[in-house]
């Protein structure tokens, strides 16, 4: 749909009369990154595991800007983005009309990129920042699952002699995909509004942002339709069936033994009962009585199995039933700082996420990066962490230490290498009133960090390594 839109912009350019084309202005710019990364774990972490992958950050972007006429302050802007992790499907990340109201003030209408954090708008353009990717704890999709919206954005920027100020506002709605609990959950953003204020000099930028999101998600049905949930439900269903069959079998055998005993008792009447009966008949009778005990025990066992399977099915239903669905809210507050004087570099940012109505954790995430330029080489160090709170379903607390170096091979190309050590956060106590605790008896929620793992769906806990090492390298370019 969006691709079609951007193609339409291109087609529009082609069908314009030549006289208009002469005065018009069409510019194409692009960027690309090839990233190879590997961890030391079998579990998928973000996009990477022990086997290594090009999938995490490899991408190609093409940005086109078409201004039909120099006298009209309108431009059409599209950015087509193709990521390895999406099998190179082409996505129109931006597609908007820009109205340059004045030197200071711009209005964009269409699909606009969200200025959530310092680097959000340039998230895919590696040449503009030191790391291979901005710190995952704050910038990852698990923290902010939307990067662009259909709506409008306003951008006011004023330069003074040494300083500048900037104010941004946006409003939009869209569909979202939230990567959580090892799957992608679909939802709809009913509104998202944000205001950002930033100021600085040539070397410094300080930024404050506030973003408010309304979302609708049908989580229970999506979670219960997960393959893992289906398997679990099928297993429980199978147990119920097996226990029912076993109970029926044991019941039949018990009835058979009863009938046999009745028959034997009838046969013994002519002998005046058991005592007077011949020995073979007596033995037959004793065997039948013994089997009665065995079959009785089998009936009891089968009955217990059936009850257990039934309880499990009921509990699972209760667990899924307890997952809130419907309207949710998310509020993001963040503060960022970026300084680079050509020798020393410092970037730091903290973001607070508050969730309401849907069972995702509140998070507090942030990082600090320091670096020093040695000509074309920039070694840098980052500490980055995320703390999850107030959730019964997922705990993504973790902290990372990243040591990296960027080498500017050319003004338009940079080679980057990074080593990352990540440690998962502690387990947290669940809300005791949660059915997960009352039904399944799992008061503790372990941290899965940013591991991409499907939890055990009866406890929502999972077994992942408590730390990992990751190595990455990338070549990033603009053209």
């Amino acid at each position, binding site marked *: 749909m969006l691709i079609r839109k951007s193609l339409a912009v291109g087609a529009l350019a082609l069908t314009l009369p030549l006289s208009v084309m002469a005065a018009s*202005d069409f*510019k194409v*710019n692009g*960027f690309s990154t090839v990233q190879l990364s590997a961890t030391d774990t079998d579990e998928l972490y973000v996009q990477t595991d022990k086997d290594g992958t090009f999938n995490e950050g490899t991408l190609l*972007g093409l*940005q086109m*800007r078409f*201004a039909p006429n*120099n006298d009209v302050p309108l*431009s059409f*802007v599209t*950015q087509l983005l193709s990521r390895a992790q999406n099998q190179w499907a082409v996505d129109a990340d*931006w597609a*908007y009309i*820009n109205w340059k109201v004045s*030197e200071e003030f*711009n209005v*964009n209408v269409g699909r*606009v*990129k969200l200025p959530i954090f310092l680097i959000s*708008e*340039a998230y*895919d*353009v590696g*040449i*503009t920042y030191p790391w291979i990717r901005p710190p995952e704890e704050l910038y990852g999709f698990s923290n902010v699952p939307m990067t662009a919206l259909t709506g409008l954005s306003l*951008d006011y*920027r004023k*330069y003074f*002699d040494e300083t500048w100020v900037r104010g941004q506002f946006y409003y939009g709605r869209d569909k979202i995909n939230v990567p959580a609990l090892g799957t992608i959950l679909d939802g709809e953003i009913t509104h998202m509004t944000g205001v950002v204020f930033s100021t600085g000099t040539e070397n410094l930028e300080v930024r404050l942002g506030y973003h408010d999101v309304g979302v609708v998600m049908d989580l229970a049905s999506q979670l219960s339709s997960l393959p893992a949930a289906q398997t679990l439900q099928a297993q429980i269903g199978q147990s119920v069936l097996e226990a029912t069959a076993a109970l029926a079998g044991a019941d039949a055998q018990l009835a058979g033994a009863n009938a046999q005993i009745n028959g034997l008792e009838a046969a013994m009447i002519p002998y005046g009962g058991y005592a007077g009966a011949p020995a073979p008949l007596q033995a037959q009778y004793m065997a039948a009585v013994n089997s009665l005990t065995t079959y009785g025990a089998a009936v009891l066992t089968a009955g217990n199995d059936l009850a257990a399977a039934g309880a499990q099915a009921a509990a699972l239903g209760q667990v899924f039933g307890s997952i809130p669905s419907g309207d949710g809210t998310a509020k993001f507050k963040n503060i960022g700082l970026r300084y680079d004087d*050509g020798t020393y570099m410092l970037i730091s940012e903290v973001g607070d996420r508050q969730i309401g109505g849907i069972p995702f954790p509140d998070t507090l995430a942030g990082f600090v990066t320091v670096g020093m330029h040695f000509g*074309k080489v920039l070694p840098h160090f980052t500490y980055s962490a995320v703390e999850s709170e107030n959730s019964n379903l997922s705990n993504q607390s973790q902290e990372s230490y990243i040591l990296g170096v960027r080498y*500017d091979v050319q*003004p*338009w190309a940079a080679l980057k290498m990074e080593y990352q050590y990540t440690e998962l956060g502690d387990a947290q106590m669940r809300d005791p009133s949660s059915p997960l605790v009352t039904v399944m008896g799992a008061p503790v929620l372990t941290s899965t960090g940013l591991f991409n793992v499907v939890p055990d769906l009866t406890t929502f806990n999972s077994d992942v390594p408590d730390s990992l090492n990751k190595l990455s390298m990338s070549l990033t370019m*603009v053209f």
Partner: protein
Amino acid sequence: MKRNILTAGVFCCLLAGGAQAEVVVVAHAKSDIAAVDANVLKDLFLGKTAKVGGLAVRAVNLPDSSALKMEFDEKVVGKDPGKMKAYWSNRIFTGQGKPLDQVENEAAMLEWLGNNKDGIGYMSAGAVNNKVKVLLTIP
């Protein structure tokens, strides 16, 4: 005395590689702009403004690979090619304004400025002809 210093200066430049020609900032011969301040020029080539003395202008660049552009960026804007590229990448790919117009070489620059009365560009002093007028000489 002054002449000696100039000679020494020129000699130095020649020794330093010979490519350090004098750069001049130029506009259409009949441009309404009389002169341009170095600070305004810097803002113009950083895309921070598109006006000189209240008049709308269009700044035009030489390609990144041009030695003259590198010299201009270094002297006027105060950024080396890497920083200039990073600055413009950030600007372009975050949607903050469009990239500047660009021409292939000095000959194309002369022609472009001859055709665009609102244009403003730069070239080596030796390339100037009657189609353009010099607004500023960068030593």
